[in-house]
């Protein structure tokens, strides 16, 4: 069984710098058609599939240009370090439909495969061909940035450790094996060190950029969490007030919340979070009750 390719998390900055492409690292048999096309990133990520949560800032229908195939959408999705380019053509009909109607700007999540286009030596274009694309909440974007920062930082720390060890070749491969890193990943790390010539300067520069990314969402995330807490408190209050023993109709709750200035989708998220936390429950469908 071929294991499913992981949807990697990496920032646009790193993704767009990933110019090393391999047909297959893992398989000795080059005729193996199932072996994925891979990009190796500067920190040694084997990129086949990626998951990105960011802000969609621009959508363009290239299909409307004369002489082009009929439907080709290009979108720009921004994260704190740069921009991912997404192309959806006739073979990604769902994504194309989504892009044709999406509100700009808004938060979106994209799952897709990395594509590399090299029209001539020295100019390389990296893009994403979407498998799935959807609206997400701003909290999802924030969490994605933290997750991605976390995973990227781990990779950078490992690289930095390898560089300062002064080891080369087989010694380096052995030390990666000792750390319990599987063969494919360790090959990718070695390839990236060789190809990109990653050095400590690159690492510390990248770290600063991650730091700035985190700071940029810190404020937003703080406000968001505060808001969520406020919403939840209001909902709890409403539940307390309206409940006459048999719980509160969900629709009544939404109505009351609206009167207090909370949008319907916001209170819905709040209710779900309260249900998940166990602060209230649904004795019957459509009825909410405090614990």
């Amino acid at each position, binding site marked *: *069984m071929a*294991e*499913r*390719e*992981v*949807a*990697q*998390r990496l920032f646009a900055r790193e993704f767009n710098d990933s110019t090393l492409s391999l047909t297959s690292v893992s398989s000795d048999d080059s005729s193996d058609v199932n072996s994925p096309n891979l990009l190796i990133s500067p920190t040694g990520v084997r990129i086949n599939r990626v*998951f990105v*949560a960011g802000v969609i800032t621009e959508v363009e229908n290239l299909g409307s240009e004369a002489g082009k195939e009929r439907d080709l959408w290009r979108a720009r999705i921004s994260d704190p370090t740069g921009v991912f380019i997404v192309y959806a053509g006739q073979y990604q009909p769902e994504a194309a439909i989504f892009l044709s109607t999406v509100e700009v700007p808004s938060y*979106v*999540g*994209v*799952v897709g495969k990395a594509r590399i286009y090299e029209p001539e030596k020295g100019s390389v274009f990296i893009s994403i061909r979407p*498998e*799935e*694309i*959807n*609206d*997400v*909440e701003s*909290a*999802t974007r*924030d*969490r*994605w940035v*933290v*997750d*991605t*920062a*976390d*995973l990227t*930082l781990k990779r950078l720390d490992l690289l930095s450790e390898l560089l300062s060890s002064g080891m080369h070749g087989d010694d380096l491969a052995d030390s990666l094996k000792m750390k319990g890193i599987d063969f494919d990943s360790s090959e990718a790390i070695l390839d990236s060190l060789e190809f990109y010539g990653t050095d400590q300067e690159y690492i*510390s520069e990248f*770290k*600063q950029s*991650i*730091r700035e990314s*985190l*700071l940029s*969402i*810190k404020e937003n*995330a*703080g406000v968001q*969490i505060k808001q*969520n807490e406020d919403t939840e408190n209001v909902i709890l209050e409403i539940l307390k007030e309206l409940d006459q023993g048999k719980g509160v109709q969900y629709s009544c709750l939404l109505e009351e919340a609206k009167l207090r200035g909370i949008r319907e989708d916001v209170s*819905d998220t709040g209710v*779900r*979070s309260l*249900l*998940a936390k166990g602060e209230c429950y649904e004795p019957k*469908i*459509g009825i909410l009750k405090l614990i």
Partner: protein
Amino acid sequence: MNDKYAPHIEELAKALDGIDRDDIKNEFNKLIKFRVPLEEAKRTVLNKFSSKEGPETKIKDISQAPKSFTLKGRLISVEERSFVLKGEAVNLYSGKIADETGVCFFTAWNDFSLKEGDIIRIHNAYMKHWNNRPEINFGQRSVVEKLPEDPSMPKNEQLFTRSKKIIEINSSDMLVSSQGMVTEMYHRDVNIKGKDTKILEGVIADETGKLPFTSWLPMDGVDIGSVICFKAAHVRLFRGIPSLNFTNESSWEMLPKDQCLFSKQDLISDEPKSIPIAFVLEKDGIFDVAVTGNIISVRPGSGIIERCPVCNRVIQNNICRAHGTVTGVKDMRIKAILDDGTGAVYIMLNKELSETVFGKSMDEAENIMKASMSKDAVFESMKRSLIGSYLSVRGNSSKSEFGTTIVARSVWLPEDDLLSRLECLLLKLPEDD
């Protein structure tokens, strides 16, 4: 006729350095007798003996072993069995083989003159599942090499004293010793061979993990919260998830409080802690595990489905594979892929969990279906509301040919730990001067 082929045999012997000449000759002559063309015969013999040597494998890795592998171990028991195959009496040999990492059943389909206590290296062995447990097979192409006695290779008795942490117990264990706290327990009456028997079922946990157990022994004085130390519990497997069975061969004792190596409080609080999905993928199956990731795909087959009222199979157009035309029972489920950047697992949510995650009851979902006159409407709507979002899932994981699946027992939105995680990361990222 032998003379005529002698140069060819010579050639083969040269190419197959280290293989007995007579074996090559016998094999070759057999093919010639069947009037196989010379070239084909040579190729076949060459292939048979020079078979690409599989990598050396340890018993603990047996379930992930390649198609063909080499293994070194001690034969702990050998039993001869004969049965009739296509009207011919056949002998096969089965038993247990052990190395320093575990013990495993084997079946030899040929007579390799295996003897109990011998240390052997078996080339070109292969793995098959038998009773949910991986088993080593010695077949046509296998070659057994007897090795000199090596006292470092465990003998039978040592296996009984093998003591492991709960998380380390896997398919390479048949009997295992460990300790843990009983976190769940209930009595059950079962009828075995016409006899009413009381058994105990429950869950045992330590700081590394937990496993279900069944005891056929009375366990007086043991209750939820007791810490026990057990020896020689049988390990059974179901979908790659081990379970512990206390039988007549097993023994157990209560562990005094001061000898308990882990915090009972942590185990009782039972806070699910998410682990990286990469770790889940390494195991054949884990009992009660929690993961957190993004839903990156909602699979077809999610949404409103119909089940056979008799066997619960998913049916289409009111026709059940086993029960013919039936009136389907409506149900709702979500099959999705959860990915956390370290790996991806399939997750399965039943009706109740689907309703929570989807945020709509099955009735509401049915109305969506009716309003749009399309069966896929619910599936599409689920995709729109779920893809990209974060979810935490808790349940049992198991590996199959379709990939690793977690059947969810509970789901929730990941806790609001974003700011604290953010602060933690910032600490590791000092500002440049």
